[in-house]
């Protein structure tokens, strides 16, 4: 394994942090901002990170959500090895590569989305869960690729797809390539659509920008968590651009239900039940794909093959970019 020894210390460090993180609840979040009740981290976790007194929905991480949805059956992460490249060599107040590494260290996540296979109360599904804690849940190439693979995986196995969004939008640090992930995710979802599998989207606070304006608004069924902000442009941008004074409930889930943009506002504690119900209604004996039919499955295989080749060409965990843009340039070898 000498390919990874360069940064094994770094990995140990990450693993250590991940083990010792306090169930990922910052201390200040244990006191409810709405009703000022206090709870232990464990109470919070058991109540799906919803204030038992007033129903305020605290932020929830991707792993928390997977635990909530899967229950005791557990879940198996898919493609945990995908990591952001830095095609622009982007630097704002900090280098993008450092930002991404720090986010990984802080959250214990490889990216802003976690894909997994699970069963929701006995209903098998593929899940793609975003985590706002990882760089504001922003969508870069890894989020796009994981979503695309999740769609292919679901299509190939005739499974429904569950998506939970929590995102500020496209990841600016990947520039116009992040913008392209809007198209990539929509097209991938369409492949699943052709396979006849349903897509359930849960919009958590906040779901804005390029995520709301791509796959998040294309679920067959769209639920929103109470109080979640759902908008293409955030309130600050709107107020600055138009000098409109926005109502306090601007873009909130409850208003978006009124606006016809979501199917229901659902309490997080009822979400597994609700999702299982929809999956139960739509359940059918698994359909056979005609053999050799050109379908999204090929995408998945192709994608996996590409990824495997790409991975081989990367020495260890170096952040060298797999520049798939310039044909013929396939890493430095080793």
């Amino acid at each position, binding site marked *: 394994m000498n390919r990874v020894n360069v940064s094994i210390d770094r990995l140990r460090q*990450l693993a250590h942090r991940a083990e010792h*993180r306090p169930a990922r609840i910052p201390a200040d979040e244990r006191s409810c901002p709405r009703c000022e009740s206090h709870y232990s981290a464990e109470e919070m976790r058991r109540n799906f990170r919803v204030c038992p007194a007033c129903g305020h929905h605290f932020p929830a991480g991707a792993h928390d959500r997977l635990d909530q949805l899967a229950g005791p059956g557990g879940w198996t992460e898919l493609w945990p*090895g995908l990591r952001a490249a830095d095609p622009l060599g982007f630097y704002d*107040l900090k280098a993008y590569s450092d930002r991404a590494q720090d986010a990984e260290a802080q959250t*214990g996540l490889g990216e802003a989305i976690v894909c997994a296979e699970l069963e929701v109360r006995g209903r098998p599904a593929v899940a793609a869960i975003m985590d706002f804690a990882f760089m504001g849940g922003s969508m870069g190439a890894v989020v796009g690729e994981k979503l695309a693979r999740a769609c292919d995986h679901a299509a190939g196995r005739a499974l429904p797809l569950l998506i939970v969004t929590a995102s500020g939008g496209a990841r600016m640090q990947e520039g*116009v*390539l992040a913008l392209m992930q809007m198209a990539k995710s929509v*097209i991938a979802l369409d492949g699943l659509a052709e396979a006849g599998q349903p897509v359930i989207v849960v919009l958590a606070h906040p779901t804005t920008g390029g995520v709301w304006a791509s796959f998040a608004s294309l679920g067959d069924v769209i639920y929103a968590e109470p109080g979640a902000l759902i908008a293409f442009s955030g309130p600050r941008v709107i107020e600055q651009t138009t000098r409109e004074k926005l109502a306090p409930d601007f873009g909130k889930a409850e208003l978006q239900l009124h606006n016809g*943009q979501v199917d229901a506002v659902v309490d997080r504690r009822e979400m597994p039940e609700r999702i299982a119900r929809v999956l139960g209604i739509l359940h059918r004996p698994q359909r056979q794909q005609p053999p050799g039919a050109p379908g999204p499955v090929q995408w998945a295989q192709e994608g996996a093959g590409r990824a495997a080749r790409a991975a081989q060409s990367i020495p260890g965990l170096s952040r060298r970019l797999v520049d798939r843009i310039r044909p013929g340039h396939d890493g430095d070898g080793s």
Partner: protein
Amino acid sequence: MEIPRPQTGGRFVRRIADRLAGAPENASRVWEGIQLARHQERPYTLDYIARLCTDFEELHGDRLFGDDPALVCGIGRYHDEPVAIIGQQKGRDTHERTYRNFGMPSPEGYRKAMRVMALAERLEIPLVTLIDTPGAFPGAGAEQRGQGSAISHSIRTMSRLRVPTVAVIIGEGSSGGALAIGVADRVLMLENATYSVISPEGAAAILWRDAGKARLAAAAFRPTAANCYRWGVVDAVVPEPKGGAHRDPDEAARLVDGYLTRALRELRALPSGERRRLRAERFRRLGPFREIPPDAAALAAGRGEPTSARSDLPNA
């Protein structure tokens, strides 16, 4: 499997792109480019339509709620063939800018666009989009009427088309408001146009917490045609007249015409189902990422606890 790069643009374009790519990119160079992309004498969508089409009929209304002058849609006669055209339209004077909402479309604009996309599909005529917008309109009403879902549906509708589609970024291509009409078989970009996830001002306000740092943001994003070409986001860079398209709009249109004709000719030669499939592949290829070995990844993902330990959760 290596999917070959589309050859639109030919050797000449690649030469241009390489020349540009070779040039050192510093903040002020990029910034100058952005000023050209936004130049108020720069030809806009209707200026190109007038020069490219011998006849054009603008269509209005989304059949749902209203008509959006920020997004011009219609059918035109182009090289003696019908074509559908969709493009954001900025305004030159204050009055027109207000009327066109500075080229920032509302949901009605994208829904009108989808109607015209469906028309093109049904009548089997190619679709050309002209991209020139600072972004989709950020307004409370636009949000209320589903700006997000208007954009996502427009992306989906365009990606599903079986007719030939070409997008040309003629000026400023910012955010989902630009991409909503940019999911084409071939994406061309003018030499001084920009294509970016957000306007430099917007990025500066968010990343540097200071809208004044727009030059810095521009340098970080490098939203130039040369870079977009290198990243595979655009398929060809269309040269502009010396000094920029605004110096000679007729010549600029003539150059666009050449590339557009060639792209459409290539695309017409493909079977229609094939176009949709190749378009999907094209967009699925975009965006580099790394993949680390599974065992290292498992460590990094920090999943040690057996999930069965969580059986105390209420949904158990």
